[in-house]
């Protein structure tokens, strides 16, 4: 009898352990079966935090966050050189950085980053690469991130943009 109980407990513990570890397995399977979608999704989450918070955060912290986000984007770009999605995101992030640097009176760095952004976006066939237009566009895009809470943003940003 004691052995039956011990055996049943082992089975139950196994079922419980498996049940609880299923989400981890699910993420691992999803990541390995579709790495592009996984990476894109992670970047979306990261972007939502950075862009949203940068609107309200002190400029110094915003600069740090944007620089970190940019280096993540560039590391993804190194492994996927042809990605236009990443190229666009890098271009817009340079513009965002430039805007924050201008706020911090780092004029030469701001100009440099704006030029980098412009050259990234030029490779994507963007027609209006003037500083004024890109600043206005990014301000508009940032404001759409600001309108909603961080949790709802992923879903609603594109809906607003589109």
């Amino acid at each position: 009898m004691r052995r039956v109980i011990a055996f049943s407990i082992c089975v139950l513990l196994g079922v419980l352990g498996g049940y609880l570890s299923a989400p981890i397995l699910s993420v691992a399977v999803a990541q390995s079966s579709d790495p592009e979608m996984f990476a894109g999704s992670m970047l979306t989450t990261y972007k939502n935090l950075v862009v949203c918070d940068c609107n309200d955060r002190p400029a110094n912290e915003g600069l740090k966050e944007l620089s970190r986000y940019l280096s993540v984007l560039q590391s993804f770009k190194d492994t996927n050189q042809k990605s236009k999605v990443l190229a666009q995101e890098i271009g817009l992030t340079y513009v965002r950085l430039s805007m924050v640097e201008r706020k911090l009176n780092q004029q030469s760095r701001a100009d440099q980053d704006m030029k980098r952004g412009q050259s990234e976006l030029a490779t994507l066939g963007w027609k209006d690469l003037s500083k004024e237009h890109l600043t206005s566009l990014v301000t508009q895009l940032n404001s759409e991130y600001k309108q909603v809470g961080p949790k709802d943003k992923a879903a609603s940003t594109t809906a607003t943009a589109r």
Partner: protein
Amino acid sequence: MKVLKSIFFCFVCLLAFLVAGAASCTIRAKYWGIPKVRASLAYSYTGFFGEYSFLQYNQADAEQGKAALLDYLGLLDRIQNERIQYPRYTLHFDAGLTYLRLYRLEMAANKPAEAGEYLRSAQKEFASSGMRGDLSSETLAKNIAVREAGEAKRYNKVEGTTVPATEQNR
């Protein structure tokens, strides 16, 4: 002998623990976890990709805009083909809207035959989404023109005036 029996029993218990764990993990992952994770990743990724394709359409030249819109349609198709749990309305609505944008680009490029094809595809997608109301070619063409004018106002401010993306592509 008794010691051997005990060791054997422990081994059986361990095996039962592992088999039960693997089985419950696989079943839960297959029927609950993986579909949910894939749906969440797809939802998030289409947002990211949708913004990219929209900005390419709105800001880049016609060729690049068209390529981005077709890539986005490819992604939506993939989500549909792989049967990822994704809101049906959103999927078809986004596809329909993308076809309408392609229609606008082809009209601006003076290719009415291709434009007409895209308009028909848009109608099909909107009908599949369950959308009710007037889905005639004229209404859809009018709606996308109005929508584009609004987008131009928001994203293409040129010295106080606005220029729709398709106008700029000309």
